[in-house]
């Protein structure tokens, strides 16, 4: 082999090897369009407005057929009480299905912890539901293809296909998934897919008397929730996990996990 040929072949080999396989992929314009349709459901929670009545939790359970007395729920409300000495107390008895009716904090096995009114520095309520992440880890771990994300961004579970392995329940950093006690499959908030696809709002949004919950289309800049998200200071939960949650919060505090 001549030196000229050796150099020529080396350059071709290096150039060829450095070409990623992705560059040889044929880009389908339909696929590109589907990746950015004109509808993407999103949610806005205004924690300033929430008073912890729990009507959202009650309505969600009744609308979606979640056993009312079982300790599972698709949405719940958390109470955070920050004391003047810096101690953070948080609870959500029965997911706040019956609201918060006492100043004592539910500490689980330790019982109810009494809090003196004068010790409270700040206290507030935070509604939680599925974040319908842009990169949902719960979907990635499903071994059978029972959970998936629709084109409009809602993560659903196929009840006839789920084998109940529980991987997705463990994978969700927000703990929104649970095992359905009747169907024995993974269950989660669907953004009331049966309602929003008929032009209605979700049950929790409809039930909230204070307008703390809103649902809308993130792709429409004129949508009320898009306007807030684009123009005001909103936060998301557990940003560091890289899941790109699509439930935005107004008035999020650092104590909220």
């Amino acid at each position, binding site marked *: 082999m001549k030196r000229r040929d050796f150099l020529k072949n080396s350059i071709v080999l290096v150039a060829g090897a450095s070409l990623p396989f992705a560059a040889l992929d044929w880009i389908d314009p339909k696929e590109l369009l589907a990746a950015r349709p004109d509808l993407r459901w999103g949610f806005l929670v205004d924690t300033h407005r929430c*008073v912890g009545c729990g009507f959202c939790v009650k309505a969600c359970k009744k*609308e979606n057929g979640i056993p009312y007395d079982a300790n599972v729920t698709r949405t719940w409300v958390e109470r955070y009480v920050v004391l003047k000495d810096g101690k953070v107390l948080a609870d959500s008895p029965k997911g706040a299905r019956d*609201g918060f009716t006492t*100043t004592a904090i539910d500490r689980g096995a330790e019982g109810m912890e009494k809090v003196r009114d004068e010790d409270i520095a700040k206290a507030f309520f935070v509604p939680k539901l599925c974040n319908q992440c842009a990169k949902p880890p719960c979907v990635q771990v499903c071994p059978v293809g029972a959970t998936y994300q629709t084109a409009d961004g809602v993560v659903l579970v196929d*009840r006839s296909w789920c084998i109940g392995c529980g991987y997705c329940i463990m994978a969700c950093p927000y703990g929104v998934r649970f095992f359905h006690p009747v169907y024995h499959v993974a269950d989660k908030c669907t953004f009331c897919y*049966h309602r929003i696809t008929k032009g209605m709002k979700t049950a929790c949004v409809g039930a909230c008397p204070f307008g703390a919950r809103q649902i809308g289309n993130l792709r429409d800049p004129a949508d009320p929730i898009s306007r807030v998200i684009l123009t005001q200071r909103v936060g998301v939960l557990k940003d560091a996990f890289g899941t790109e949650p699509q439930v935005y919060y107004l008035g999020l505090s650092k104590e909220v996990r």
Partner: protein
Amino acid sequence: MKGHVWRPFWVVVGIVALILLVRFFVVPSDFGIGSRGYMYGWHRAGNEQDWKDFPVSYRFENSREDCGQCHDDKVAALASSPHVIIKCENCHGPALSHPDHPEKLTVNRSRGLCVRCHAALPYPTSGRSRIIGIDPATHNPGVPCVECHNPHHPNLEDM
């Protein structure tokens, strides 16, 4: 080649054929990659319709107009009270089928419903502290609130 080489080969071919045959019958035909690709969209397409077909129970959006078609006196009384922000169905239960099956509606008259908002919680940074509150343990315990208060027009001066 001898039979002892071909025999395991045919066994493997048979197993693969059996798996493909079972797969053909068990996996639904609409199973495949959705618009979100392999990682997030691998599913049975028909399930999206299954979820869309889930029955609706609450009407919520237009409940005041809908309910007012028959119960206009209640809706009118409510209009001038602070309780106007609470949707009818929050206390009266899911009512989408109510016009067709009027007897089905069960009204929640319990104390528990009222103290969701009216149990006093002195939280300075929450809207809760701006709602008139009582201590459920000392404020006429055991008596349903609706014995004294009219939920559709709860003004304390009118009592």
